[in-house]
């Protein structure tokens, strides 16, 4: 959604909520898929199931939102999965050894932020390619997590933390509320703050942004730190649900995130993307998985469906935008 003010000079600016055409298209796609499934399975369109979809998608949602901002800035973050794994094992260790929950949460988020700082600094200040840097980060973070845990899971996450994650807020599962709050926050950043403008500018034309005085380096570091933060937030939800942390979690998370962002309208060239669109993309993927599971279709076909959806979304993109 974008806001527009009237352009006629002298008139009182009127605030209108204008639906981004691309987002509308994605919504229609979601609608079609949901309608299809509700016909095919009687269980699909029930409140428990829909809530289930949202809850299952909450982790991908957080990763995808961070990924969206990185993609809009013209970069990519392939290291989100391992960054989440590293945060998870560290957080689990702290929680299991009795560290106060708020402190442990902060420390976990700190790990994610550090991972992002690592990538972001190399990309912004050393001028290295995001693809390569985060690819390296992917291996690096995974290795550290495995070495630290010896490959073994960490058990013993206290109930206090687990009940935090597994509770409801006003009847809605906490993870969904977390995603909603974060989405709102990021939407505000992208649409209402200078940082959002800078991200769009850098992704649109980095050289022009630089000449126009945009703090390019600082902004780039910020988006990667945010991506890392969201990865660690996602890991907190995961370990809260599972009660344990494995160093191998997060595998292929980046692909689901990129898929969601792309379905939601983000262009991998940078300069274009939408928080709302990514959310719809996440839900589409979640609905797909859920629907196919309800229909007892094998997981392999779910992978097929995911891949097809992505390609179809891109083709529709090409056809409607011609660019």
């Amino acid at each position, binding site marked *: 959604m974008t806001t527009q003010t009237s352009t006629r000079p002298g008139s009182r600016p009127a605030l209108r909520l204008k639906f981004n055409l691309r987002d509308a298209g994605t919504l229609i796609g979601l609608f079609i898929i949901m309608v299809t499934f509700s016909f095919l399975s009687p269980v699909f369109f029930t409140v428990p199931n829909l809530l289930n979809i949202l809850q299952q998608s909450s982790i991908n949602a957080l990763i995808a939102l961070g990924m969206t901002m990185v993609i809009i800035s013209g970069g990519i973050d392939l290291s989100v999965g391992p960054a989440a794994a590293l945060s998870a094992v560290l957080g689990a260790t702290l929680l299991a050894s009795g560290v106060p929950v708020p402190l442990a949460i902060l420390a976990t988020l700190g790990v994610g932020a550090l991972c992002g700082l690592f990538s972001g600094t190399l990309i912004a200040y050393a001028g290295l390619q995001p693809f390569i840097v985060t690819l390296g980060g992917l291996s690096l973070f995974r290795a550290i997590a495995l070495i630290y845990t010896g490959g073994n899971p960490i058990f013993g996450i206290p109930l206090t933390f687990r009940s935090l994650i597994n509770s409801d807020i006003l009847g809605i599962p906490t993870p969904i509320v977390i995603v909603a709050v974060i989405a709102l926050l990021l939407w505000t950043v992208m649409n209402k703050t*200078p940082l959002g*403008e800078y991200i769009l*500018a850098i992704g649109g034309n980095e050289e022009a942004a*630089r000449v*126009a*005085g945009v703090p390019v380096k600082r902004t780039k570091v910020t988006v990667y730190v945010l991506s890392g933060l969201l990865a660690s937030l996602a890991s907190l939800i995961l370990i809260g649900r599972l009660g344990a942390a494995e160093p191998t979690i997060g595998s292929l998370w980046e692909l689901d995130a990129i898929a969601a962002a792309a379905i939601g309208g983000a262009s991998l060239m940078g300069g274009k993307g939408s928080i709302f669109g990514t959310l719809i993309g996440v839900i589409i993927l979640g609905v797909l998985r859920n629907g196919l599971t309800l229909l007892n279709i094998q997981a392999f076909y779910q992978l097929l469906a995911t891949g097809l959806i992505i390609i179809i979304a891109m083709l529709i993109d090409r056809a409607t935008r011609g660019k």
Partner: protein
Amino acid sequence: MEQFRLTMRGISKSYGNAAALQEVDFSVRPGEVHALIGENGAGKSTLLNILSGVRGADSGEISVDGSPVQIRSPLSARQAGIAMIHQELQHVPELSVAQNMFLGRPLTRAGGWWVDKKAQLARATLILKTLDPTIDPDTPIRNLKVSQQQIVEIARALLDNARIIAMDEPTSSLTPREFDRLAALIGDLKATGVSLIYVSHKMNEIFRVCDRATIMRDGRQVGVVNIRDEDEESIVARMVGRKIDKPDHQAFVSDREVLRVEDLTRGSEVVSASFSVRAGEVLGVAGLVGAGRTELLKLIAGIDRRTRGTVSVNGRAVRNYSVRAAIQAGIGLVPEDRKKEGIIKARAVKMNMALPSMHRFTAAGLISQSRLGREALRVMGDLRLRPLDIEKPIGTLSGGNQQKVIIGRWVAADAEVFLFDEPTRGIDIGAKSEIYHLIEKLAQAGKAIVVVSSEMTEIIRISDRVLVMREGRITRELTGSAITEENIARYAIKDIDPGA
């Protein structure tokens, strides 16, 4: 009987409404070195592009050794015996010398499936022996010095049995000693009957190696001369034509110095530039492409790093040089290439305008769209953006309007120093005069303005003073009635001594 190796007759080419070449005749004799002379924008590059098959002419004919040829592509140009050696050498750095020589048409065996590297190496060695035996055909070409790379390009041309070789600014990266060798090589080629077309701004070189010269101006051929019969003055005079009268130029120059540049240096691109600009003054910077004018502006704007030197605005030196520091000091650059360095084409006009001044429209971390919108309407209205739609993506605007938005950017940022790099490039005639008017308005408002331009008439029209740059240095300052095309050309082109 073939008097001419190459004849180009009646060549015309237009890009849209702009005529790049008008009925140009150009002929080269066998075994002659023929100079192609003209200012930037005179049409030399276009003519060469047509000759080498990169572009097609709208009309006209080309004949080689008396027979008409159709040059539709670089390949057909090569087949006609025409080879072009560009100013920016075109090779693949990682491949070997021999591979580069055969780029695009390798020697093959087994019906085209197998590249015969041995045969390539052998032929390359043979040809290079006559040109420069010190070049090893097997080494990656990037290991060679630029002068040697150039010789490889010549060898490549000879491989195709080129009888016409065009060289575009061949000595821009050569030392005087290397030029001597090139001159000797050119002499050898001449002796074998090859015709050479030599494009250069360096008069001393032209006088040394060339036999005849064709002078171009504004897309027309204005003269063909024998070098022996001419001197530099007469050629320069023909390049620039008659004196252009300065239309009424209002000066708003005050006494207050706003911008001071001292000893500003960046390697050999910009050497020890020192000057000052007062409030209300328009300082033009003239010179050829490659003279360092754009680089100078980029240094002042904080985009490139300087080797040494200082820039001060209103008496305060700009420290910790960066784009942001320069902007904070009140410096704004309107870049040469809008598309590449100016606009964020998908974003709205108002956002493009507000980019350096975000803090002015931000309260408690959030952008006040109403305040931003109001300011954008005010500034762009002042600059006469028509239609006044600040919500449209800037990429949809015309070149002239885009330029106004970039100017508006710095007005909104309260800049004191406005740097313009080719302010009317790619802008139609109507919008051009509007831009000049805007520059005048800025001067009237007490801003210090520096304008880099390759268009003589433009610089002469809007400048109070003119600095002429050549090879990184400011060679001359012109004021008042001394601001003429001849003077600018003289100090932009003339070599005082080749070894300097």
